[in-house]
């Protein structure tokens, strides 16, 4: 059997910890638990611990002096830790306008998946999506929990430019483009919410382990929220949960 987790150097400035377990909420909580332990234990070193679906990456600012020493310290840290509690999390409510003007591929999904527009919106706004991590672009959230019925292939030819705020589906993933960029996902709507603000000390309110619920807004409401967002009068609604 393969080691679990597998701890190995990734170049001179990184150590990768990969778990051979099913991707899901349980593994995410495990990752976040170990992430905190490592951060606390290594607070004197210049490093950052990040997670993805099944891995932790410890990235060091400087070249690691003693790679094997570091790996074995991490092995001890992880084997010695008992997962005691789940971490606290927030559930954010995110407005999305599913008007066909924004939802460029709604018709395509409607035909392919044999769903009415109303059904697409219902299916997309029903789940609480789990935030696994941020990657790809600053502020781009990797979310889990898309309804199987909404699953759809990416576009054969990616769009050269997808609008900032566009909400899309690619295979079994859904997400929001934090800024305009090329993209191959099927676009179903647009959110007026600012996902990443480089001018804030904490540029994004979302953390791995938090959850997101979409709610449908009209075009008028979309523009209203967008205005309020710009003038700083809109604050994201969220509920806190004890883990």
């Amino acid at each position: 059997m393969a080691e679990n987790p597998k701890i190995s150097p990734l170049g001179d400035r990184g150590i990768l910890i990969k778990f051979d377990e099913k991707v899901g909420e349980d593994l995410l909580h495990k990752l976040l638990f170990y992430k905190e332990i490592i951060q606390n234990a290594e607070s004197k070193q210049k490093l950052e611990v990040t997670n993805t679906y099944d891995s932790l990456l410890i990235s060091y600012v400087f070249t690691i002096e003693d790679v094997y020493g570091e790996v074995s310290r991490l092995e001890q840290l992880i084997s010695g830790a008992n997962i005691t509690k789940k971490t606290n999390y927030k559930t954010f409510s995110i407005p999305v306008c599913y008007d066909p003007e924004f939802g460029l591929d709604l018709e395509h999904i409607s035909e392919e998946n044999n769903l009415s527009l109303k059904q697409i919106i219902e299916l997309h706004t029903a789940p609480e999506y789990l935030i696994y991590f941020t990657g790809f672009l600053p502020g781009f959230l990797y979310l889990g929990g898309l309804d199987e019925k909404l699953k759809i292939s990416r576009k054969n030819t990616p769009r050269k430019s997808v609008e900032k705020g566009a909400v899309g589906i690619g295979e079994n993933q859904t997400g929001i483009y934090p800024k305009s960029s090329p993209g191959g996902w099927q676009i179903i709507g647009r959110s007026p919410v600012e996902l990443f603000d480089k001018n804030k000390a904490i540029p994004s309110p979302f953390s791995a382990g938090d959850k997101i619920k979409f709610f449908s807004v009209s075009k008028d409401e979309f523009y209203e929220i967008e205005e309020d967002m710009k003038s700083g009068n809109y604050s994201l609604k969220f509920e806190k949960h004890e883990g």
Partner: protein
Amino acid sequence: MKAEMEVLQPGLFSSIQDLGRFGFQKYGVPQSGVMDRYAMRIGNLLLGNLQEASVMEMTFQGPQLKFNSPTRICITGADLSPQLNNEPVENFEPIQVKEGDELKFGRRKRGFRSYLAIEGGFDTGEVMGSQSWYEGITSEFRLKKGMRLAYSAEQVSEIDTHSSIRIDMDYLEDGEIEVYPGPEFELLPQTHRTRLFNADFGIEDSSNRMAVQLKETLQNELEPITTGPVLPGTIQLTPSGKMIILMRDCQTTGGYPRILQLSETGIQALAQKMPGERISLKNINYTHNGAK
């Protein structure tokens, strides 16, 4: 008066960089930072600066700059034929600059990226704890004509370390790039593994601070991986066989198999290679006394 240099000509692609941006990867923000850390460190050491003081990174064709206050500078990395007031000056040597002096560059002699270190470092403002320019994060991402770049006017106490600094310039031309096996290396068939370390590869024209692409392909049947962490120096293998070597401005996560990982020495050597040049990959191992 604020100590500033005016950009008379921007050159091909120049930007202000330091070690990079750390602590923001969790928001998907790239590390950025100088492509060639060695060149930055040597330039700063020769001036008595902190090793990580910000520098100007200049690619292939240097800019033309005019200083409004006296300072000392040191040019390292690639040799782009620097001239102060039309007189040739040496790389890897501290140079005294007077008010009104003009620095420009000429023909590239060797290497690809040159570094301008300045006494006390640049003073161009930090975003998320770093001065490194990156499009979308800092307000500027490349030098433009007419820009005025502030630098520290403070004199650094002269440190007599010159004699003890050994300067290695061979890496500027050495085409051998050090790599470690990456997380998905073992998934490659033996023939591919052998080929990686025995063939040589050409650098694509499209290469930049985000990634260096190789011309030759490696036909493969590897499945995409569950999106996972990547770092500068990660070599990704795409389904079409393209090898993409991630550099300092790379994304924080990726879904292609990570077949190899460059060492820091490998990254700085690759940073000095031009599109069209050829490289080979040298397999190294992690040692017990430091990474290398």
